[in-house]
Structure formats: C-alpha cells, structure tokens
C-alpha cells in the first residue's frame, strides 16, 4: 500500500463569474460562457494522485493552466470546485488559521521568479518561514546556515538577493523551501529563468537532493526534457485538462493523442540517455514499494 501525498479530485478553477454562478453541471452553458469570454477555465476537472516520495511533473505550455493548478494546491488561488488532499489533510476545507499552519508546516513552494524579499539578506530569506512561525532567532539562523551549506551558498548569508545571480537566487529559494522540512515541495518552473548550463546543474542537484530526502515533489515545467529527466511520472496539460498521465516512458511510447505525439516526436533518444542516468533511482523506488 503506497501512501498518497497529494490527492486531487475533480478540481476546477474558473475565472470570471463568482464561484456559485459557475454552471459546472451544465457543460453547454459553461462552454457558451467561455465562448463569450465571460468565463475563463484555467483548470478543468483535473484528478490525480501523487505517491509519497515521488517526483510528479506537470508539463504544459504557457496558458495551459499549470501555474493555476500549483497555486490551487496551496490555495494561493481559490479553487472553484473539487477537493485537494495533501499529506492526509483536506486542504480545500481548511479555515484561515488552519491554512496558515498548513502552509507553514506541510508544504513549501519554489517560484519561477524566486519570490525573495529584496529588503532581507540571504540568511533572513532562508529563515523567513521559520521567522513567521516565531522560531527563536538562534535556532532559525543555525538552520538557515545549515541549509545554505546544503545548497552550496555558504558564505553568502549577509548578501542581499540583488547581489546574487539567478541560479544563486533560486538556490536561496530552495533553501527557504527546505527550512521547515516540509514533506511536500511544490516547484513552479523553478529553473525556467536560468541559463541552460546552470539549469542542467540545478536539475542534477535536485535529483541528488530528492534521493537524500525522499520528499514528494510536485514539479511544473514547460520544458519536456526537464520533465523526462526529473519525473517519476508526468502529466501533460493542455487547456486546463490533463491530456495524459504516465511515466515518461509510457508517454513517449504511447502518446495519447496528436498533441502529445507532436510534443514527444524527437525525444525518445534523450529519454534512453536519461534512463541510464537514473538507473539507481528506479531500483530504489522498486525496493521501497516492496517494503510497504
């Protein structure tokens, strides 16, 4: 029995009309509202689950609804309908205080544009979440220094985000996410803004980090290569729908429709390469499944 870290059922996000005025039960009416631009559907009846310790990648082009989806998980965007369960907690039914506690302890997010506080030092940025939780100064600073070592930024504590390169800023973002040791990491195109070489390097480090911590990672990207390289399973998203969900291999070999097929056309070779790199990784997964 594998434990489900994230379980999403029938998730909708419709922008435009008020929540109670969205005719989800009348598809004809909804599509008319969409045609007249009265309603914009960003996430359309999405259901999926992510196993504990898994890297789940959502791949889609811009406007496919993937950023809205990841924000719904944290309720930074309020879903129109559906349920989200993370780590056994039903996120969609939390009240404000519970939601604050959930965000502080159960999941952490890494942003595409880093989302660092420009007026705080690297050290203060990493310990920001702990500061919100009122962890004593000494303790949170020790933890922050430890994490800066983990992400390879020792010695940069006193600098401000503006003094750092993009890659380094995202390392700060990752250290901040790890600070309160949440079981789930949500990553919203974390490496999209980086140079190809740095991106590759960060991807490798993320794989290493995942092997060490076994955190559940929900990873959003528009880059198929990245999805194949990192994901245990991936979902291809288009127009708010999950077009296909499966292991990268399955998606490459049996694309569900023309859209996915066009996407994966020349990626098979790349996948063979990635598979070699991740050989150990897959053995490890197999073992954990046997144990549980």
């Amino acid at each position, binding site marked *: 029995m594998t434990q489900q870290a994230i379980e999403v059922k029938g998730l909708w996000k419709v922008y435009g009309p008020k929540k109670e005025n969205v005719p989800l039960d009348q598809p004809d009416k909804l599509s008319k509202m969409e045609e007249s631009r009265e309603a914009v559907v960003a996430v359309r009846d999405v259901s999926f689950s992510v196993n504990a310790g898994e890297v789940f990648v959502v791949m889609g082009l811009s406007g496919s609804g993937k950023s809205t989806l990841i924000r719904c998980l944290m309720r930074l965007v309020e879903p129109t309908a559906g349920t989200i369960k993370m780590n056994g907690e039903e996120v969609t039914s939390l009240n404000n205080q519970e939601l604050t506690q*959930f*965000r502080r302890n159960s999941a952490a*997010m890494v*942003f595409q544009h880093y989302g660092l*506080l420009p007026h705080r030092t690297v050290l203060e940025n990493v310990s920001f979440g702990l500061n*919100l939780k009122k962890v004593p100064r000494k303790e949170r600073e020790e933890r922050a220094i430890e994490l800066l070592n983990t992400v390879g930024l020792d010695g940069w504590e006193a600098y401000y985000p*503006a003094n750092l390169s993009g890659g380094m800023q995202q390392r700060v973002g990752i250290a*901040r996410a790890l600070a309160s040791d949440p079981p789930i990491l949500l990553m919203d195109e974390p490496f999209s803004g980086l140079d190809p070489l740095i991106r590759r390097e960060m991807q490798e480090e993320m794989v290493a980090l995942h092997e060490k911590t076994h955190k559940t990672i929900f990873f959003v990207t528009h880059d198929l290569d990245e999805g194949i390289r990192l994901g245990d399973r991936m979902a291809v998203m288009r127009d708010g729908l999950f077009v296909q969900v499966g292991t990268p291999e399955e998606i490459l070999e049996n694309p569900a429709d023309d859209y996915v097929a066009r996407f994966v056309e020349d990626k098979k070779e790349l996948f063979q390469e990635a598979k070699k790199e991740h050989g150990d990784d897959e053995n490890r997964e197999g073992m954990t499944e046997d144990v549980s």
Partner: protein
Amino acid sequence: MFPETWEFHIAGWINDFTNWLLTTFTAFFDGLSGIILSLLLNIHSGLEAIPWWVYILAIALTSYFTTKKIGLSVVLSLLPIAVGLFGLWDLAIETIAIVLTAVVIAILVGIPNGVLMAEFNRIEGLGRPILDAMQTMPSFVYLIPTMMLFGLGKVPAVLATVVYAVPPVIRLTNLGLRQVSQEVQEAALAYGATRFQLLKEVRIPLAMPSILAGVNQTTMMALAMVVIASMIGGGGLGYEVLVSINRIDVGRGFEAGISVVILAIVIDRLTQGFAKRFEPPSN
C-alpha cells in the same frame, strides 16, 4: 437669472452644526487643544534651545551622510545663514516648530489611514473622494471651522495645516503598499504569513520609500500652509508675509518669502536623502 424663490441655503445648518459641536464637545476640544499646544510648545522650546551654528553643522552632516555629496552639503548648510542675515532666524524657528508639530500629527493620522485604504478596497473607495475634496477645497475654508472650534492662535493654525497637508502621506502610503510586487507577496503568503505579518514583514518595509515620499510631500504642503495659517494667529514667517502685504512692503515680503523657500529646499533635500536609504538594495 436663476429664480430667486428657488434659493436654498445650507450655510445655516453648517453654522448650527459647528455651534452644536462647540457646545457639546467643549471638554473634548479643550483637551485636544491642550495636548496640541503642549506638543507645540515643547517642540518650539526644544528647537529654540539649539544654537544656530548647531543647525548649520547638523544640516551639513546629515546631508553628507545621506547623499555623500560635498557640494550639495555645503550649499544646503549655508542657505539658512541667509535667513539669519535677514533677521528672521527666530521667526523661522517658530515656523519650523508649527510645521514639525503638524507633520507629526499628520503622520500619526495619515499612515494608519493609508494602511487601512490599502487593506480594504471599500475604505479606499470611500477615502478617495474625501482626499480629493480636502486637496481641492480652497485652504482658506479650513480656517473658519478650525477657528470657530479652537479660537485664534497656534492650535487652530496647526490643525488647519494638518488638514491641508495630510492627503499626500495617506495617498502615498496607500499607493506604496499596493505597488509591492505581487510575486513577493504571494511567496510570503505561501510560507504561511498572516495578513498582519504580510503587512509588517513585507508590505510596509517595501513601501517605505513611497511612504517617506509622502512624508516629504506632506512637509512641503505644511510649509506652504503655514503662511496662510498665520492669518488665524500661526505666527512665524507667515506673519511677516502677512504684515508686508498689509503695508505693501515688497522688500520685506520677499525677505520672508525667500526664507520660506530656503526652509523648503533644505527640508526637502534632507528628507529625500533620508528616504533613499530605505530603498531595498538593487544591482
């Protein structure tokens, strides 16, 4: 001709209302008046106790440490000497005392109101037309009710100045808080910041340059109003201008006017240099 029989006045009601306020809340207005007066007198006697050359030195040093420009610092610190040479030093100190008192009150009232406007869209909707009215209403109109409620003298002068000068700090606090990057705010929320924590740890610090620009504008407006407020007993440089107008003494009027301008330039430069220090580091 507009029909005479249609004539309809609200002046009587406003007068009645002011009278009613005055008789019903005598104790409140007296108390408020006392607090403002003692604040003003303390600030004034504090400012008076400082020798003139300390001001010059202080201006030079603050200017140098905030801007690192020697030329600017020298010019800024020499300008007030002209005020002394015109024989208007003591009056200038009196003016600064009134401006400072008004600005302190304006900040205490303005920043919390700006925060409320930024936090609640409804309050913003309500506040905007009131602020517009406050800024477009001829400033002389403020003098009448404040004079009725507080009589003649420095306290109504301070209050009329506050009413005239408070809008910019409210507006720029509101604007600054609303302009804080959505991405940064979203990240703070994602890490479990409460609404109050978001305000205290993220929005206010990042809005600080804008808030201080508001304080700077408020100070400039207060200086401008001080001349008008001298009509109800504000004293200071404004009174000197008033006397010159009555006597059609152009020279004397210009000396006082130039002194006000000098105060404005020095205060403006100093507060702007100070505001720059609050900007978050950038590349």
